[in-house]
């Protein structure tokens, strides 16, 4: 797995992070964050449980980001 960003930022002068790289596809990114916000802000699953499963998933997939 790479330890450096594989695709450069779409924003001139900005560091390559998740948001700036995803800015290559602004429509996809906007609708993704709209969906992701729905996961976190609504529904019947407690926020604590969502956070625990998010962190566990990060460990299982070995995602240090």
């Amino acid at each position, binding site marked *: 797995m790479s330890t450096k960003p594989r*695709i*450069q930022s779409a924003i001139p002068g900005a560091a390559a992070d998740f948001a700036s790289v995803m800015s290559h596809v602004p429509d*996809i990114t906007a609708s993704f964050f709209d969906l992701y916000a729905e996961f976190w802000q609504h529904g019947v699953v407690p926020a604590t449980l969502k956070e625990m499963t998010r962190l566990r998933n990060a460990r299982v997939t070995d995602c240090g980001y």
Partner: protein
Amino acid sequence: MSWVSRVNAETPLEAVLGQRPELLSRYRTFYRTLWHDGAVPRRVLELTRLRIAAIHDCEAEWAVRDAEVAVGDADLAALRAGDFSGFEAAEQAALQVAELMPYAHHQIEDADVQAIERALGSTGAVGLLTALAFFDVTCRLKLVLGVEARPCAFDDPPLRRGALV
């Protein structure tokens, strides 16, 4: 048959995701942008979507086709077998990463991503990698929810008559 309670809906996937109408609506909108922002050729999306469905042995996803792309029987057999030798270079680059996304994402190398970027540009590379991740998600979701396989074709990918399939 899914073990999750179903609502009345156009497709098996919407019948279960319809338990959360707002989530379904946003998922439908987001997923559609993967095809409609034009970052990745439609045939590349179709080939990689089908390969990921084959890797997961997800019949509910494999049963769906993009009628406009109309992947032929020989290519379908190759996708089932994981033999990419007959595809064009850009398609092979995309399929190489699709192959690793479900269960071996840590084995994706810098060179694999560079090959996609050379073929599709930075915009196409980000669009494709996002699509691959969500093809993987969709297969996992269909399998875990127990969504039944129903052969059908997109008329407006990834929708048919306005519903997710």
